[in-house]
C-alpha cells in the first residue's frame, strides 16, 4: 500500500495551501484518481482519514474528502490515434499493472499504440492522483 505516501502528499499540500491562502480551516479536498495508476480507493481513503484524525487545523477530522475517478485516455504522438486505457489494461499482466501503479510513465515500456504500434503516446487524461479543488475559509 504505497497509497499511504500519496495520501501524505495530499495532506501536506493542503496544509501548504492553507498557509499560502490564509485559510484557517480546510473544509473539503476534492481529489481525482486517474485510472492509469490503479489506486486502491479504500486504503487511500482510509489513509487520508487516519491522518486527518491525528491532525488539528487547518486540516482535521472535519475536513471532508471526496474522490472522483477519471478514465485514462492515451493519445499516439505518431499517428494521433486516441484510445482508452481500459482496453490496454485487460491485456497487461499483474506485474506490469503493479509497475505502472508506482510510476505511471513506465506504461511506455508496456503499452503500444493499438493502431501503429508506436510507444510514443501522451497520457491526456487520468494519469494519477490530482487535487481538483481545496475549499476552506
Amino acid at each position, binding site marked *: 500500500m504505497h497509497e499511504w505516501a500519496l495520501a501524505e*502528499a495530499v495532506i501536506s*499540500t493542503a496544509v501548504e495551501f492553507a498557509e499560502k491562502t490564509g485559510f484557517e480551516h480546510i473544509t473539503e479536498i476534492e481529489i481525482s484518481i486517474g485510472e492509469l495508476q490503479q489506486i486502491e480507493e479504500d486504503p487511500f481513503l482510509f489513509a487520508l482519514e487516519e491522518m486527518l484524525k491525528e491532525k488539528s487545523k487547518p486540516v482535521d477530522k472535519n475536513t471532508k474528502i471526496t474522490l472522483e475517478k477519471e478514465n485514462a485516455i492515451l493519445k499516439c504522438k505518431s499517428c494521433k490515434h486516441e484510445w482508452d486505457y481500459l482496453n490496454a489494461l485487460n491485456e497487461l499482466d499483474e506485474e506490469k499493472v503493479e509497475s505502472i501503479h508506482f510510476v*505511471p*510513465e513506465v506504461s511506455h515500456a*508496456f503499452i503500444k499504440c493499438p493502431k501503429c504500434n508506436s510507444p510514443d503516446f501522451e497520457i491526456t487524461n487520468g494519469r*494519477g492522483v*490530482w*487535487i481538483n479543488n*481545496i475549499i476552506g475559509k
Partner: protein
Amino acid sequence: MDPRPGIIKERLKSIKQTIAVSGGKGGIGKSVTSTVLSLVLADAGYKTGLLDLDFCGASTQTILGAKNTFPKEENGAVPITINGVKFMSITCFTQETATPMRGTDITNAITELLAITLWGDLDFLVIDMPPGLGDTLLDTINLMKSNFLVMTTPSKTTVEIAKKHIEVLRQSNAQIIGVLENMSRGEPSASRELAEKFDIPFIGQINFDPKLEDAVGNAEKLLETRFAKEIKSRVAKTLKSL
C-alpha cells in the same frame, strides 16, 4: 493541483548529503563512478542510497548486477538493499524493457519517485545523472538540494560540454562539489584549467582501468578494482571532509 511536490522535502529530510554525478557528456563514467562511489561509501559503513535518474539510458542495475529490485510497498516504496546500498531506478519497474519517455514524462516520473520513495536515514544519496542539459538536470535542480560532482575526461568535446554544464549549474545557483577528470592519461589537464577558471575545486584524476569492464556486473569485484581504490582515495575522502 499536483499533490506530489508538497511531500518531497519531507521525503529527503533525513538525507545528510546528496551527490549528483553529472558532467553533461555521455560515456565519461558517470554511471560507473556513481555506482562504485555508493558501494565504497556503504563499504565504509555509511548509510548510502543510489538513485539512477538516467531513465532512458539506465545502467547502474547492469553495473551492480542487480536482480529483483522491485521495491517493497509499505506506506510508500521502500528501496531494496544491494551490497549495502539502497537502490532505486526506473528499471526496478521496467526490468530490461525499453522505456522511451519524453521530457514531460521524465518530469512526472522523477516527481513521482521522489514523492513515494522512503529512503529513511542516509548519510549519502548518490544520484546517477543522464547526459544533457534537459528535463532531468533542471528538475533535479528545482526539486532537490543536490551537490553536483562534475565529471570530465581529457577530450576536447567533453571539456567544452562540461563548461556549459557548469554555466547552467551556476546560473541555477546549484552547489558544485568539484570537477573530477576520468580516463586520465597523466597529461596536463584541461579539466583542471576549467575548474580554476570557474573557481571550483579540482578533485583529481581517475585513470583508465583496463580491468574495470571485467568487474562490471559484480559488486564485490568492482570494490576490488583500482578504479574503486581511486574513487575511494580521491572522491569519498573529499565528500567526508565537506
